[in-house]
């Protein structure tokens, strides 16, 4: 008698696997940024602040009072959020006018800039700090290889999944490291401002990200953007199902990915003029903007399955054929938060890491519940900032007292 095969993976297994597949790269990115921050900042002074769009309104100096710093940081953040909003609207417009090629070209270009120039600068920092005797020919050759293959990985949708994911994590790490170079108050206020912006942009009906997602859904197209896609958890029952499971989730609409609006003809960093910096900043803010976090659950199976069947088999939406997508901006801002926490002490790093992962878990649960594009920044960032403040001002004193009196630890 023919028996219906029971699923070998329970819902918990597939759900756990999905969550692990998105938490792992986020954790790796955060770990890399923390390592970079602690290795590079301990040797050099971190007082050099970058002049960028994010510090255009106010440059923090050590002599200002806290209130001045706060107001200055607020101004900076408002300017930054305004720029991000404008750029995102430009992106929506370009997407509406079907300038997909331009957007993809832009994506590849900014990936090249980030990997080539920022990657180059970070490696130069490391080389200088540790006096690694590498010569210029080898260095430029390796950097060239790294950047070009990275652009290919980001451009082409058919590169090895592992390579694409690795490069996305590296891009997130480099941009996040760059952001940790901003002054302290500006960083924290900007993080909160971006979390609120994300909330507004994704959930409000006039929000640019919501418009983008709805456009993509109505056209059933994929937004050309830097988005991290986790590998889909395959149901062991269906196994190698009909034909090629060609990463069909990419073609599905509802992928809330941010695109990168790009407007700068960016200059490479060797030119230390102000202009080049602001250009780089625009460029980099574009990826940030683009990488808004819209976590989306893709419920696609083979192209030939009827949508109804999919939903019937899907259960709670984080189904076995879906793949979770997380925008690269989420990676970046989480890592910025943890990187900034690392600049104070490792205790804040642990606290913020736990807060962010908890926030990510909450967002994933909400995603399963609502089954639409959701902002991934607000919960994690707000929890992270709260935990940072509590740890730095309350917990640390407590623990230090206990440890120095040998009561605990």
């Amino acid at each position, binding site marked *: 008698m023919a028996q219906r095969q029971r699923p070998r993976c329970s819902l918990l297994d597939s759900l756990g696997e999905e969550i692990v597949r998105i938490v792992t790269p986020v954790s790796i990115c955060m770990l890399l940024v923390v390592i970079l921050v602690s290795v590079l900042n301990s040797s050099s002074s971190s007082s050099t602040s970058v002049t960028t769009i994010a510090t255009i309104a106010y440059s923090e100096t050590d002599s200002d009072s806290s209130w001045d710093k706060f107001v200055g940081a607020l101004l900076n953040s408002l300017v930054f959020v305004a720029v991000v909003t404008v750029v995102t609207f430009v992106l929506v417009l370009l997407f509406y006018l079907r300038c997909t090629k331009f957007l993809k070209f832009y994506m590849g270009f900014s990936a090249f800039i980030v990997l080539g120039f920022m990657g180059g600068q970070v490696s130069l920092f490391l080389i*200088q700090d540790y006096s690694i005797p590498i010569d210029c020919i080898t260095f430029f050759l390796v950097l060239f290889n790294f950047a*070009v293959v990275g652009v290919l990985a980001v451009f082409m949708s058919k590169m090895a999944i592992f390579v694409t994911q690795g490069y996305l994590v590296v891009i997130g790490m480099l941009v996040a490291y760059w952001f940790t170079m901003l002054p302290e108050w500006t960083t924290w206020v900007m993080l909160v401002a971006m979390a609120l912006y994300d909330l507004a942009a994704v959930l409000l009906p006039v929000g640019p990200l919501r418009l983008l997602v709805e456009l993509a859904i109505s056209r059933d197209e994929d937004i050309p953007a830097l988005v991290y896609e986790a590998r889909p958890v395959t149901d062991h029952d269906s196994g190698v199902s009909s034909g090629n499971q060609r990463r069909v989730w990419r073609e599905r609409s509802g992928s809330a990915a941010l695109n990168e609006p790009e407007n700068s003809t960016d200059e490479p960093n060797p030119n230390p003029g102000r202009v080049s910096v602001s250009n780089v900043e625009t460029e980099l803010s574009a990826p940030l903007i683009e990488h808004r976090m819209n976590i989306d659950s893709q419920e696609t199976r083979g192209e030939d399955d009827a949508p109804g069947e999919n939903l019937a088999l899907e259960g709670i939406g984080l189904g076995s054929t879906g793949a979770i997508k997380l925008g690269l901006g989420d990676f970046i801002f989480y890592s910025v938060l943890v990187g900034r926490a690392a600049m104070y002490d490792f205790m804040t790093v642990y606290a913020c890491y736990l807060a962010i992962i908890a926030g990510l878990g909450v967002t994933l649960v909400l995603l399963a519940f609502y089954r639409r594009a959701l902002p991934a920044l607000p919960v994690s960032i707000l929890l992270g900032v709260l935990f940072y403040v509590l740890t730095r001002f309350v917990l640390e004193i407590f623990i230090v007292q206990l440890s120095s009196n040998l009561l605990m630890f």
Partner: protein
Amino acid sequence: MEASQSPTVDRQILNPESNANSIASVGPLWPTVDGPLGLSEADAVTYARRFYKFGFALLPWLWAINCFYFWPVLRHRRSFPQIRRYVLGSAIGLTAFTILLCSWALTFAIGGESLFGTSWNQLVMYNLADKWGLTGWN
């Protein structure tokens, strides 16, 4: 029963791959390391060829990615002969380039000033970075 089975056993021992091939009829089903999520065989030939050709633009890392991506092709002989040509070429190119690059880099690093003289200081990266001001974060 046993007599009829032993030739099969002998064949299995002698030619495990051909046996696997005859069982699965093509060896590995998917040419890429991603399996069913990766490329189909027809697309794979185009991609392997493109990676191989682009690698000649001083991109050994692209050759390495090519070998990684088409690892099942490299591992199972006699599968996907068209793809295998390019992947093997990439592997050979990668090995040659890496040996050259590593020998140059190690000579430079270990030889140092005693081998190169003053030109070592002109070639080393941290001096050049200082000279050109590459790490001024402006």
